[in-house]
């Protein structure tokens, strides 16, 4: 295990469009520029804020806050319903720009990505990465619009590059190297570090670590055996020193959707129709990843803040909307009253091409052909051109929303 700081040339660049959705809306609608705005999924007082503009953040508005609370902090704050195609377009523009500099680009979410310059051309490698970062900032303005801003961080690993990108929001460009590493840590709190939230902070506090510098100087054995109780402790020891431990891709483990019900007065049948709509959406996402599932998990949150859930694992994999809904519906028979939010996930995923699926009798083969035909029609003529009659009226409520944590469906 390396105990020194990584003093190699920093060749990892993290690019982050902070307040991305709000910035894109301000770009699209010039009269909103300089005003506090909030992106929400539904324009009601009770809705949670997905993204706030910098002007709103300056007044204390935070992501996740109820719009009602935000109005108290920022009177005149403007709510805008999220517009996924717009954000998807900006995501692809950003990705195109980043790919001009390296073949090794990883998008971490819809508004942030990493360029690895280790294996890029000599021409690009021969340039100062600070200049490349400035050029990317300018290209965002030229190719998307003048209001677009991004934070750029450069370092020797993904963790420090992301940390660098968070130092001077909303339009920063910072480099962290072995030389300024300690200086940077001395300005941060433990919870400023990506991956250290309240729970991990408490773990660190329990062994007398209260600052990033103390974390950096901590004994790796203490981190591994006492604080994190796993190899994660060693990884932190390396990560904090600028060595790469996060260059990994994760498989899709589950596919799901949730929905905050549009009214507290919905009947059980109306709720089931919305569940059915979610199942169709999950089925479509599942198949778009070439996956079939064996497990279904459903949950409901109630107005009394109860969390109810149920799950089922089948012997054979499935992937049709009908099967997902049928299993979810059966589980939902035990759901509580007074539901506020519902959700459905598929898990235990396997490739849809697994031989098992086609070894069984004709019915499964026919079902597969029918599903593929419907997916082909929907791809050609638009999402939900063909769907079950049961969900005919649900589209105005259960709209397509932007996936935050994953870029798989963009």
């Amino acid at each position, binding site marked *: 295990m390396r105990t020194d700081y990584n003093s190699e040339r920093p060749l990892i660049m993290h690019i982050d469009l902070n307040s991305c959705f709000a910035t*894109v809306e301000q*770009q*699209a*609608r*010039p*009269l*909103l520029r300089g*005003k506090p705005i909030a992106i929400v999924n539904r*324009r009601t007082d009770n809705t949670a804020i997905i993204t706030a503009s910098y002007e709103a953040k300056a007044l204390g508005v935070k992501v996740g806050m109820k719009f009602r609370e935000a109005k108290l902090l920022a009177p*005149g704050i*403007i*709510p*805008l319903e999220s517009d996924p*195609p*717009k954000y998807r*377009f*900006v995501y692809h523009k950003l990705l195109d720009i980043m790919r001009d500099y390296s073949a090794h680009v990883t998008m971490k979410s819809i508004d942030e990505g990493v360029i690895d310059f280790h294996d890029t051309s000599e021409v690009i490698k021969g340039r100062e990465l600070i200049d490349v970062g400035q050029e990317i900032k300018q290209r965002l303005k*030229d*190719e*998307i*619009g003048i209001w677009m801003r991004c934070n750029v961080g450069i370092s020797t690993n993904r963790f420090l590059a992301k940390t660098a990108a968070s130092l001077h929001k909303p339009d920063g460009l910072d480099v962290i190297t072995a030389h300024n590493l300690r200086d940077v840590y001395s300005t941060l709190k433990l919870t400023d570090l990506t991956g250290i939230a309240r729970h991990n902070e408490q773990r660190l506090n329990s062994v007398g670590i209260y600052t990033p510098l103390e974390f950096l100087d901590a004994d790796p054995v203490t981190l591994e055996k006492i604080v994190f109780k796993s190899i994660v402790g060693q990884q932190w020891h390396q990560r904090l020193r600028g060595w790469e431990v996060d260059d990994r891709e994760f498989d899709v483990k589950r596919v799901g959707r949730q929905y905050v019900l549009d009214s507290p007065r919905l009947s059980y049948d109306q709720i089931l129709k919305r569940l059915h709509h979610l199942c169709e959406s999950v089925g479509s996402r599942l198949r778009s990843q070439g996956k079939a599932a064996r497990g279904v998990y459903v949950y409901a949150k109630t107005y009394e803040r109860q969390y109810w859930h149920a799950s089922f694992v089948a012997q054979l994999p499935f992937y049709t909307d009908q099967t997902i809904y049928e299993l979810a519906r059966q589980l939902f028979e035990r759901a509580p009253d007074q539901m506020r939010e519902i959700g459905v996930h598929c898990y235990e995923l396997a490739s849809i091409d697994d031989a098992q699926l086609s070894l069984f009798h004709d019915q499964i083969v026919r079902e597969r052909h029918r599903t593929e035909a419907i997916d082909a029609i*929907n*791809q*050609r*003529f*638009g999402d939900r*051109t063909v769907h079950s009659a049961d969900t005919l009226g649900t589209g105005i409520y259960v709209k397509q929303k932007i996936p935050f944590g994953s870029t798989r469906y963009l």
Partner: protein
Amino acid sequence: MNDELFLNERIKVIAAFGDGLNPARPIRFQRASGREVEITEIGLRHPTSAGKRTVHVFDVTDGGADYRLEFDSERLTWHLTMEADHYAN
């Protein structure tokens, strides 16, 4: 306060098609009422798809209100689909 008015109004548009990063630029449009709107800035142009059909969405302003224009690249039609003309401070 955000006064968005969602519409589906067929409009007449004068647009320039050139080169560069933004090769299509609506310049002025006439609403069904006959009122003409001079576009002072195109905020963003992004494509959306209705199945395999591409509809280009132009978010524009005349300095007094924001508008959303949609150009159907298959049918070659323009629609005004949103107008937002008042933002209280």
